[in-house]
């Protein structure tokens, strides 16, 4: 019986070695599966981002060509892309120096107070005509895991294109205002 342990030790692995090997290989396999899953999630997120960019460009084009001419006076346009076939995508566009609405799950922010303050500040604020007006579009979509779930695009439009001159300057004279500054681009 004496030679048994020595011969076994020379021939093969001990139980501890095999157990460690299996554990390492198992960890590697689990890690690989996780990586595959993470790749899928990242791809879905990238797709959401690119789709959001596409939809935001569409919205910018719509604003630029006056499709939202009535909502523009409120300096804020909101909606979803259900018409385009993506009901889970929503957008919010703000004109000028307005800020986007804070996220709904932000408990520290008083939405109503903010709303009232904004209305008050808008009342005494006189819009000074500039050569260009800033338009920001924020597209929000359902988040994938904890990745960022919004995309903001910004574009500057000639002022008259957003605020048609016939409302502002109807009283003075009928001639359209000359395109100022727009030739420089």
């Amino acid at each position, binding site marked *: 019986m004496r030679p048994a342990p020595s011969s076994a030790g020379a021939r093969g692995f001990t139980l501890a070695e095999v157990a460690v090997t299996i554990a390492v290989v198992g960890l590697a396999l689990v890690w690989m599966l996780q990586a595959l899953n993470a790749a899928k999630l990242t791809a*879905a997120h*990238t*797709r959401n981002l690119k789709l959001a*960019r*596409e939809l935001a460009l569409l919205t910018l*084009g719509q604003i630029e*060509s*006056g499709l939202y*001419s009535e909502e523009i006076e409120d300096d804020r346009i909101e909606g979803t892309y259900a018409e385009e076939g993506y009901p889970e995508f929503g957008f919010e566009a703000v004109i000028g120096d307005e800020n986007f609405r804070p996220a709904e799950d932000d408990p520290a922010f008083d939405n109503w107070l903010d709303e009232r303050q904004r209305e008050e500040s808008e009342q005494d604020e006189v819009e000074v005509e500039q050569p260009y007006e800033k338009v920001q579009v924020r597209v929000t979509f359902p988040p994938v895991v904890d990745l960022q779930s919004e995309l903001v695009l910004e574009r500057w439009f000639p002022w008259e294109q957003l605020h048609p001159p016939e409302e502002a300057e109807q009283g003075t004279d009928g001639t359209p205002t000359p395109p100022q500054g727009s030739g420089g681009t």
Partner: protein
Amino acid sequence: MRCALPLRRAARAGFSLVEVLVTLLIVGAIMVAITQILEAARISRDTIHNIQETQLAGPAIMDLIERDLRALVLYDRPSNELLRVVDRVAVGLDADSLDFVATTDSVVPTEIGYRWVRCDVNEVGYRLRPSPDDDFLELYRREGFGVDEEPFEGGAFTFLHDRVKHFDIKVFTEDGPDADPLDAWNEVGEEEGLPLRLQIELTLELAPRIAREQLVIAPIDKRTVVYRRIVRLPQHLIDSLELTPVPVVPLLTPPDQVAGPDSSGG
């Protein structure tokens, strides 16, 4: 004697049944695990392909069209040869064509003499034709070197996509939601000037990979994807239709007559 017998038997007998069974079990488990990993990798690849595919070609084509349209040039061009949109139908599918002159650099170099050159101003167009193999349309970008007498014809065609289901362009002459869409613009060379905006719709039918399992996070079963863009032509371009600059060779005088104060009109 008691020690020698079992030792000799063990040395002769090789593995016991239990050892072989355990080995088989372990090898089997390893094989199953490897197969599952490979399968998972394949499914992941297909899923990622399906997810990403909808955002690869379509937006790139739309970006290309928009970039060309924003580079539309009308300097020193006859006002009825600025833009042409023709409402066409091929094999029952909308296959509008779009042609104009743009300041995008040539993509395809042209051999002139012994040199390959690119031009700064080119005729650009987007054309479709029925695919010879199936019921789809093929989308090509036309690019004519420089500008010639027929800006809407000729040039080299670059292949863009071969699974187009619908390519529709609507033209609007005024801003706002009530504007009436026109299907064509300057089809016979009568309309002058430019429309205010173009609405471009491109429908692609994408080829899915084998794995069609759906992810909740991204509905990838949607194989027919519509891409829509609205391009409002820049206001300075529209304005410059009315203020047409005419290139004039300045009157140069010999150096000894420079004394005249008003000879150099700038």
